[in-house]
């Protein structure tokens, strides 16, 4: 496992946004959207990043893509020539040669393709920008990419409106793969798609992963989707990483009460397996004004006095299983049932 080197090493990443008030837009505070997040992604690995809205998962992804400048922290990236670069402090000009190596798949397949450009132009633009000026070579490359993503190459001179949502998402994936990136960041790539199409796109990503040895950061709110694609899963809550482990461990033996509650809250498509429980009272804390101690304590059924005052650190319990909870060792939390076993266990 540790034999494969990491491709991305995010260390103590922070991103805060100013809160402005009044006529002169005076800064009155800050929202820590990403608050001390660290993780690595190995080459060829898929890391799922999950959490509810406002937890900072998209901000984390945008910092890695350097669509946003982090407030502090390091984003170490092993570039194609073997050098390790910290993306965090780089300027636009310095980032340019690295851009082809990190690409993104967007959530909205309708908004992310230029409607005035044909599919060939949409998918071929990253190639053109990166110096592939020969149109014939571009045509061949785009045809390959479309074939790779399950589209018909002869359709490349059509415009995006002629394609369905699922097909557009395939086009978006083809465009992301155009520059043969070392890292692909996918932010909610299937959440705007219909159920019957979601499965097709998930399958495509799974196939591409093994065929191209793709490294993927997969950001999503839907736990079942994340389970389907990820090798490891990171769970975020109010800007912090609360748990990080292999997919099997996160779903089978969660150590953080928030992860367990998330798993229990998912309604399972089986009327004979009651699920979708209210495991948590209250609502997600606001990142501008997080509670003292553990951010999760006001909603946590296991909170003690220590949880109310002392912020827990992210620690490693067992091999590679990171958790941010004071009581991780003593709690016995239920994961989701393995197929064939009766779901549901008391906790």
């Amino acid at each position: 496992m540790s034999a494969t080197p990491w491709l991305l090493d995010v260390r103590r990443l922070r991103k805060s946004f100013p809160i402005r008030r009044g006529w002169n837009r005076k800064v009155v505070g800050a929202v820590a959207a990403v608050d001390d997040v660290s993780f690595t992604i190995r080459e060829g690995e898929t890391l799922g990043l999950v959490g509810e809205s406002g937890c900072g998962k998209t901000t984390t992804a945008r910092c890695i893509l350097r669509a946003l400048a982090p407030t502090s922290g390091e984003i170490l990236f092993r570039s194609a020539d073997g050098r390790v670069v910290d993306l965090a402090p780089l300027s636009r000009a310095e980032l340019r040669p690295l851009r082809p190596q990190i690409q993104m798949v967007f959530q909205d397949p309708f908004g992310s393709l230029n409607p005035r450009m044909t599919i060939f132009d949409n998918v071929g633009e990253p190639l053109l920008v990166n110096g592939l000026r020969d149109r014939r070579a571009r045509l061949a490359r785009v045809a390959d990419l479309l074939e790779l993503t399950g589209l018909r190459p002869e359709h490349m001179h059509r415009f995006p409106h002629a394609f369905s949502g699922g097909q557009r998402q395939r086009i978006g994936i083809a465009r992301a793969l155009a520059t043969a990136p070392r890292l692909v960041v996918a932010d909610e790539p299937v959440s705007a798609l219909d159920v019957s199409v979601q499965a097709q796109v998930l399958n495509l990503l799974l196939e591409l992963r093994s065929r191209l040895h793709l490294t993927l950061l997969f950001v999503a709110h839907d736990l079942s989707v994340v389970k389907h694609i990820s090798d490891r899963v990171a769970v975020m809550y109010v800007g912090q990483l609360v748990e990080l482990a292999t997919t099997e461990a996160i779903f089978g033996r969660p150590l953080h009460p928030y992860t367990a509650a998330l798993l229990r809250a998912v309604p399972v498509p089986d009327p004979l397996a009651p699920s979708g429980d209210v495991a948590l009272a209250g609502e997600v804390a606001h990142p501008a004004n997080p509670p003292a101690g553990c951010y999760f304590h006001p909603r946590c059924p296991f909170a003690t006095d220590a949880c109310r005052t002392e912020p827990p650190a992210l620690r490693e319990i067992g091999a590679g299983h990171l958790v941010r909870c004071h009581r991780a060792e003593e709690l016995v939390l239920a994961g989701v049932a393995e197929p064939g076993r009766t779901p549901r266990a008391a906790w």
Partner: protein
Amino acid sequence: MTPVLQVNDLRVHFFLDEGLVRAVDGVSFDVHEGQVVGIVGESGCGKSVTMKAILQIVEPPGRIVGGRILFQKDAAPPVDLARLSPRGAELRAIRGAEIALIPQEPMAAFSPVHSVGDQIIEALRLHERQWRPTGPRLSRAEARSMTVDLFRSVGISMPQERVDAYSWQLSGGLRQRAMIAMALSCRPRLLIADEPTTAIDVTTQAQILNLLRDLQRRHGTAIVFITHDLGVIAQMARYVVVMYLGRVMEQGPVEQIFHAPKHPYTRALLKSIPSVNVAPRTLLPTIAGSIPHPLGRPGGCPFHPRCPDAIPGVCAERVPALGPVGPSQLASCFLYHRDEAVEP
């Protein structure tokens, strides 16, 4: 027992410049008292248009072109909502009072310039004679205290203060709770919930679904629950209607639909959904192709181009009618009834 709502061969068509869109094309189902009926389907299946037709709020160029929507108000014979004038007094007395709606996006449903409490007080006083036929007129103060009670019953903390809040001051979960309070304020016989938790996070969704289940049990309100989420449907509905491109593919008790689906579409749909109970990193069985454009609807059975079991020369030619395939389970598929077609 007559059902609260009987939708019979409902047809809603949109007359666009580009052509005719048959958004709802022959939909039938019943809703009984105290029953939760789930309508599930992917985008373009007509589930939301069906809901709008029941309330007669289909926007032009859409129009109800056929079918009946029988609503049982009280002991009197049922009224056909499809025949009522959308702006008439009779329908306006039903909307909000007898049939209430919980919309998908409560942010858009509340007025931002009136407090949420005022909007509920207005509904209470406007529809007073529907939910309280006799007695003195309701005063503002009384209506306000009723609103506070409603807020408390839907689990809004500090209801006294929240009554005066504006919708944009509330979080998503609280806003949806306030919306539910408003929908229940006039004690409707039928509640239509249109994707009530789609815009909400999963832990809050669990709270809202639990609240709806609890209220349903307490008041015995019939609910039509519209969603694209099969997980939510399995946990909420007792009876399920599966729609595809404006037609009912299959309907039946929830256990039957999920454990003994008959229609190829229902079967394929259930297999294709990612679930937390499945082993990670496995390929999912998929439905080939994608949902056709509304203007390019295939003839015959709308699902036939994607159907693994399509019968050559049959499914592309004629439209199958809804017929029994099990105990109170119906499917519109030629695999089961070769001779029952809808006349063209």
